[in-house]
């Protein structure tokens, strides 16, 4: 009853219809999705600096209100570009459009790279925000770290992830995890770079003098926590030339 010709025709037509349907949907929905991603990025940057009441509807407005400068720094810690509020909308600056993944890939291959840095003015206090990008268990993880003007003490952090396990690795975005970072330092008293370590079993396991550079890991989320660890170390190292020059 069903000839080979029929089966081939059936399969071909079915696949073409499915493809047409999906690409149409993807094209129509893309502007909405990109807007959501941009708003999410702004929200993360603002939230890491502890700007209160940031949500999807006011993120763009608050972002333009608080961010006073967007800096692009290169591998030698030099400022390549500085984008100020008077130059236009903050979400249109070069720094905001930098793809961290590509730049970190360049870095891993030893090529020159350029990374974004956001400067926020919060009630007269200057806060520097470093965006992060790394790998978790199932996919990419990212985040933002807000540093005081000493470029050492952490004001706050936020994390995000594409597909970590809900209830386990995905808890890196939860308050109880991120609030541990507040007040921790990325350099020690001798100005040596220490990064921040996520410690399995708890910070208490560390020697006393290192506890200021560590936070507790999440049980059940070890691989995601290791990913956070590597991401913090790797990205902070990429900014190290700039941080050391400007401290």
């Amino acid at each position, binding site marked *: 009853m069903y000839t080979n010709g029929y*089966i081939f025709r*059936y*399969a071909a037509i079915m696949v073409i219809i*499915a493809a047409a349907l999906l690409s149409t949907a993807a094209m129509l929905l893309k502007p*909405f999705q990109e807007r959501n*991603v941009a708003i999410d990025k702004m929200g993360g940057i603002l939230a890491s600096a502890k700007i209160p009441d940031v949500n999807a509807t006011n993120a763009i407005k608050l972002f333009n209100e608080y961010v006073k400068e967007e800096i692009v720094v290169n591998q030698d810690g030099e400022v390549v570009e500085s984008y100020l509020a008077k130059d236009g909308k903050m979400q249109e600056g070069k720094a905001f459009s930098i793809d961290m993944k590509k730049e970190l890939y360049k870095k891993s291959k030893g090529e020159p790279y350029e990374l974004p840095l956001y400067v926020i003015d919060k009630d007269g206090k200057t806060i520097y925000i470093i965006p992060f990008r790394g790998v978790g268990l199932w996919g990419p993880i990212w985040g933002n770290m807000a540093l005081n003007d000493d470029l050492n003490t952490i004001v706050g952090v936020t994390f995000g*992830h594409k597909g970590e396990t809900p209830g*386990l690795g995905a808890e890196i975005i939860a308050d109880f995890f991120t609030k541990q970072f507040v007040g921790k330092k990325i350099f020690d008293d001798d100005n040596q770079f220490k990064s921040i370590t996520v410690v399995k079993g708890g910070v208490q396991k560390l020697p006393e003098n290192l506890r200021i550079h560590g936070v507790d890991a999440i*049980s059940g989320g070890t691989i995601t926590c290791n990913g956070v660890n590597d991401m913090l170390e790797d990205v902070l190292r990429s900014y190290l030339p700039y941080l050391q020059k400007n401290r």
Partner: protein
Amino acid sequence: MSAEIKEREPLFSAKNMKLIKNPINISNPITVQVLGICSALAVTAKLMPAIVLSISVIVVMAAANVIISLLRDGIPPRIRIIVQLVVIASLVILVDQVLKAFVYDVSKQLSVFVGLIITNCIIMGRLEAFAMSNKPWPAFLDGIGNALGYGIILVVIAFFRELLGSGTIFDFQVIPQAFYEFGYQNNGLMILPPMALITVGVIIWVQRYYTRDLIEKN
């Protein structure tokens, strides 16, 4: 003759209602057929993702059942599994894209699990066992029924796991702070998959206690 009777059959006849009621209890996909266990373990650590996933499964399952049922006479048997997969995969991608565009927060929470609806064996099971040989309306009801049966179990598991594992419901703390001060601790095991399996076991036990028909005679 039978065709004549079927045409007169009301939309919500007793037979059709059974298609919805049975999967919720006596032929429940999770507790009786033991299908779809993987996602029941994976997304039930919190209530919210479990609910959104259940709704997504209801949408995908009802639509897939109707589409396959409409196509059932034209689908060549030799590639029927491929056809079913294409239909499910397309629907799941659509759901995922729509979630990303309009409820970004929820989509962020669900992350990979929307994509994993494709691998949910209940959906393909129903397409193969029911939609391939039934009319669209019964197929639609069957899809809704089975997805509901799946969703209800998911929500029940997620309720207990979130309550006992995190002390919260919908991320609101429900266990009073005073309890913690007296030494109460959240059960860390509840948020790990093994306890989900044990919870499923307990649900099966309770269900069999109340629904004696399910107990095997020997």
